[in-house]
């Protein structure tokens, strides 16, 4: 039902957990990426490029067996260009489109940020940008598994990138990027790479205001998805908000191995669930199911089978 992928590299570019609120001050583009060619990229793209470098370094020889046409990129984002669009739109309203910066005009389309990562490494396979609220990052892993199964790719960078939203008082801001190197299990095994572990992801979408039989049907869909990923076999960690959808998810997902464990609240975008996935992949007790849901109706579940004895290599943050 849900194909598994092996995670052979992790790259994280995010502010320190104990640091100040997201405002970009923690990141220096010249130090992280170099003096030329990166300064005018949207911040989310800069974070993505750094995380991509870390992930490829971390996965060591992962490029050896994959031709450039078989290497792909799948990235989730919700607010990767929200701040840029806000700035551009205010310029148009107050002045004129001719006052827009020519170097940022191409980023009207968010997929250009993802494509910049494809360009950076010459990846000519698939390049997809996903934008489902909250779950787009985890969805990138699911889409990656599907791409392997369909023969569209043999090596993927899958990730999430976000930049603080222009209305921080109305949403918990998040900044940074996570990139995972994904490989099909048989390919990783062939090159002797055990990686951090295997993942399989389900994404679901529920309508609002469910009652009666519609609610029962939604509960059945949630339960089927959770059980298909082994929710009754491993600890369940959850990032849930205060929405009715999250309440429904919390009640429907079977948690046979102890109560559902709180993995913190989700924020404004798709980054936090991917940071938690990276955490689980690096944790000694990593075998688990991670569940997240939001008031939009979006739900994602990721099962993690951690490789016994694997230890974090260079998958450090910025």
């Amino acid at each position: 039902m849900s194909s598994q992928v092996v995670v052979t590299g992790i790259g994280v570019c995010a502010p320190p957990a104990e640091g100040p609120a997201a405002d970009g001050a923690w990141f220096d583009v010249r130090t992280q990426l170099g003096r030329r060619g990166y300064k005018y990229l949207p911040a989310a793209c800069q974070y993505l490029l750094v995380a991509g470098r870390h992930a490829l370094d971390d996965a060591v020889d992962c490029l050896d067996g994959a031709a450039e046409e078989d290497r792909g990129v799948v990235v989730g984002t919700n607010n990767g260009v929200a701040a840029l669009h806000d700035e551009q739109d205010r310029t148009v309203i107050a002045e004129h489109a001719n006052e827009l910066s020519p170097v940022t005009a191409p980023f009207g389309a968010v997929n250009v940020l993802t494509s910049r990562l494809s360009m950076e490494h010459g990846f000519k396979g698939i390049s997809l940008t996903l934008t489902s609220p909250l779950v787009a990052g985890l969805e990138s892993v699911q889409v990656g598994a599907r791409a392997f199964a369909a023969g569209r790719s043999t090596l993927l960078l899958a990730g999430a990138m976000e930049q603080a939203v222009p209305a921080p008082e109305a949403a918990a801001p998040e900044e940074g990027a996570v990139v995972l190197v994904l490989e099909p299990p048989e390919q990783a095994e062939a090159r002797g790479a055990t990686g951090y572990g295997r993942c399989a992801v389900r994404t679901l979408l529920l309508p609002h205001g469910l009652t009666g039989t519609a609610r029962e049907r939604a509960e059945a869909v949630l339960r089927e998805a959770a059980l298909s990923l082994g929710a009754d076999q491993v600890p369940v960690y959850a990032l849930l908000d205060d929405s009715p959808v999250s309440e429904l998810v919390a009640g429907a997902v079977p948690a046979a191995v102890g109560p559902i464990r709180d993995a913190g609240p989700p924020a404004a975008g798709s980054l936090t669930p991917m940071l938690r996935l990276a955490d689980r992949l690096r944790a000694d007790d990593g075998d688990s199911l991670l569940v997240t849901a939001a008031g939009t109706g979006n739900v994602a579940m990721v099962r993690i089978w951690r490789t016994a004895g694997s230890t974090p290599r260079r998958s450090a943050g910025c």
Partner: protein
Amino acid sequence: MTGVAITGLGVVTCHGSGTRALWDAMMAAPVTDPGPVPDPYANMDVPVVQGVSDADLPAESQALAKTSRLALTAVDEAIADAGLPLGGPATAGSRIGLALGTCMGDASLHEQWRSDGGKPVARFTSALGVASEVAERLGPLSVTTTISNACAAGGFALGAAADLIRSGEADVVLAVGADAYSRVMLACFNRMGAVDPVRCRPFDLHRRGTSFGEAAGAMVVESAEHARARGATVHALVEGSGWTCDAHHLTAPEPEGTQIVRAMRAALDSTGADRDRIGCVLPHGTGTQLNDVVESRALNEVFGAEVPLYSLKALIGHTGGAAASVAAVAAALILRHGTVPPNVPIVEQDPECRVWLPQGRTTPLGFDRIMVNGYAFGGNNVSLVLAGAGG
């Protein structure tokens, strides 16, 4: 390999709502100029769009932002055309999926906040939540994806929908592409000098860029077995798709077209069909200078210059993330009728674009396979092959 059937079609463009309206417009081939955007804050040199009239959208969706309204209009038609409704007896126990393609989503929500001089007071929501509105029609979805690969998003969504059927992750998938006017996007294209002040004129020597339109296309996609079991009419088959990336430039296509050729060949390879048996191509053809030349050369390399093209954007404008979805719906209609409609006349074909654009008359569809191309900023390329219901 699992056969992937299209059993429901829905569409809305500047020519009205419904497949009948689209087909009538395709056959009439009117030269349609874009109109001024209904936006007093559109401070830009060419503030025009081929918009969808409010009268063509259901009044009950009026509270929603326009991309969602467009999507729901197309989805409602597709569901009815497929003989569903979802959640009814015909699909009881079926796993329903959604693959949505949109570039800007409901960007107009955020743009309205800013026009009003403020920010969201309660909760900041992504502009890209169109799928949530569609889910209200479909019930709980077992799998969902929203792809925002700019002007090719709808093509990737249809390819993803077919993959979901083939992988067995879903029994029925709604493949949807939708985009409405966005002030930010139109301003960015203006700033790049990429908006034609006349209209969208693909392959015309005098073209000066693209010109946007609003639209949505929706298709109900299911396995041929599932369709047969419930007695559904099959409009077309999704035989294959090829996905590549230029990895070359943020906005310009790679001049040799290597990766768009590879996308076309990958789509053909996945069908097992001979390239000589493609009856028509719906090109990406945006009207931008280099794109049309590169795509023409790529088409020549794969097919020669003898395959008829149906250049849809000349009729409805460049509809962004909806473009390839609407093109796929148009392809299904061409397959149904066995006829390639006349292209909207162009003044003078660019000699660098050596493609066959039949004008002034219909052309019989020689083979019941059609290719649809979709390309996007960032060099994201998708090609799809649709076949007649006979396969």
